[in-house]
């Protein structure tokens, strides 16, 4: 939510239910146009199946239990990889933001590693880990590490030095200074990192699953391609979109809860 959106408007719509639906108008309209285009034969079913066919394919996969299993596998990989990479990134961000020695020691190395596209490591990762779970977790963790590391570091370094000086004057210990000044000050930036990381998390996972996996959404899409099941391919793509939206919404809820002091997050 941007600052401009949050400003009170003179003639604000007093329809809370309708207000919540507005963001979905465009996606629903696209699906509607898509359906009409397919039914009228404007678009060949071999190029793009109708939304109803996609839904049907989804229903069949749901009944067979395959869909739920694949989503669960992907979700598990994504979250475990995110937690591992995110915590390491956060820890390095804290260490390098707070300690100049740690920063001198590791920052240059991390900046060099950052510039290697992590997906370029796939061949190496397959050689190391095979197409095992650990390969996917490694890639996701690596992808998630950098946005969280960089934004945590940035957040800590840009905490207003005036506030830190104030904290020292008022006799805060190092622990208190961190808890009451530095961490809350870095939090908005850390959340930016989390949202970037969520995007990279899905991207990495899907690519890894399409190339080397025996389960998961990416695998499901690749299998479907081999059997020319274009409706399942489209289904997988739509599920990515929904999962991405879900992850983003979760981080927004978290942001709202922890950043209620921030003018951009205050309710009017």
């Amino acid at each position, binding site marked *: 939510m941007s600052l401009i959106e949050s400003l009170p408007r003179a003639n604000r719509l007093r329809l809370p239910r309708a207000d919540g639906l507005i963001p979905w108008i465009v996606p629903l309209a696209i699906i509607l146009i898509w359906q009409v285009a397919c039914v009228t034969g404007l678009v060949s079913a071999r190029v793009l199946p109708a939304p109803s066919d996609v839904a049907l394919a989804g229903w069949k996969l749901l009944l067979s239990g395959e869909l739920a299993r694949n989503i669960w596998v992907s979700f598990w990989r994504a979250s475990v990889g995110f937690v591992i990479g995110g915590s390491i990134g956060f820890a390095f961000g804290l260490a390098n933001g707070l300690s100049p020695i740690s920063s001198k020691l590791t920052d240059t190395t991390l900046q060099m590693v950052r510039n290697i596209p992590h997906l370029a490591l796939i061949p190496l990762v397959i050689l190391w880990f095979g197409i095992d779970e650990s390969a996917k977790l490694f890639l996701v963790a690596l992808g998630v590490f950098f946005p969280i590391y960089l934004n945590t570091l940035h957040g800590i370094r840009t905490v207003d030095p*005036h*506030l830190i*000086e*104030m904290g020292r004057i*008022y006799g805060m210990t190092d622990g208190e200074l961190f808890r*009451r000044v530095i961490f*809350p000050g870095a939090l908005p930036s850390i959340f930016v990192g989390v949202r970037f990381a969520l995007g990279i998390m899905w991207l990495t996972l899907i690519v890894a699953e399409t190339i080397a996996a025996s389960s998961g959404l990416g695998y499901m899409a690749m299998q479907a391609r081999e059997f020319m099941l274009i409706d399942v391919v489209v289904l997988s793509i739509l599920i990515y979109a929904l999962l991405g939206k879900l992850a983003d919404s979760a981080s927004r809820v978290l942001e709202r809860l922890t950043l*209620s*002091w921030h003018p951009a997050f*205050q309710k009017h």
Partner: protein
Amino acid sequence: MQEALRFLQPDAEPLDRADFVEQARAARHGLRAPSRGLPLTIRGLKKSYGDNEVLRGIDLHIPAGQFVAIVGRSGCGKSTLLRLIAGLETIDAGTISFGEAARPEDVRVMFQEPRLLPWARVLSNVEVGLGRDRATPDAQARADRALTEVGLDDKRGQWPAVLSGGQKQRVALARALVSHPRVLAFDEPLGALDALTRISMQRLLERVWHDQAFTAVLVTHDVAEAVALADRVLVIEDGRIAHDVHVDIPRPRRRGSADLAALEGSILSNLLESAGEPLQQ
């Protein structure tokens, strides 16, 4: 008022009525009851940043409870002097002593920016000022009292972001006052406020100084503010005290009175003449 006077002498017995009247009269004439403030003695104070010698030997004694204003052109070293008094910078040479051993809670600073924690509500921001006493059970009650003192008790649950500039500065003042400091240093605390808010803040500063009887050191670029508030105005030039002017105008002082204006004019012309720009009148 009874409350406030008892506060002046924390160790004293409750005052009877005669004492109370006597004290009130003394206060009106500027001869206040024994102060809680600490005297401040500075000897041969020097400070430089690299090749730039900012303070070139300051000798100064401020009696307990005095309100001193420090004025000067920008870059004259007045803020550095204040930061040294507040213990925010290290001293190159010389000494600063507070008479008796001052605890960290005894010396407080208020800056031009309010420096409130945006993620803490107004009351928690004031509690920060308690220093080591933050964890005590009466911390919240003390913070509440300090907020009432600056007239913001109704804002205790607000985020700082919704307050006006003047209100933020009042919260910062409450935070500085909550530990009952004995020396309060102000670094242009009203510099960023609009003219009307400045005047009401000046009144508030004068009132809390009067009620709590701390030693006040105010750095300002506004000579009118200095003569309106202070017992004594120090003019700093080139890292030295160039003039030491006592303001003998009785309180409460009327803004815009001829006495204040005359004094302001003479200090201003001193400041300008020394820079080779005589005041045109």
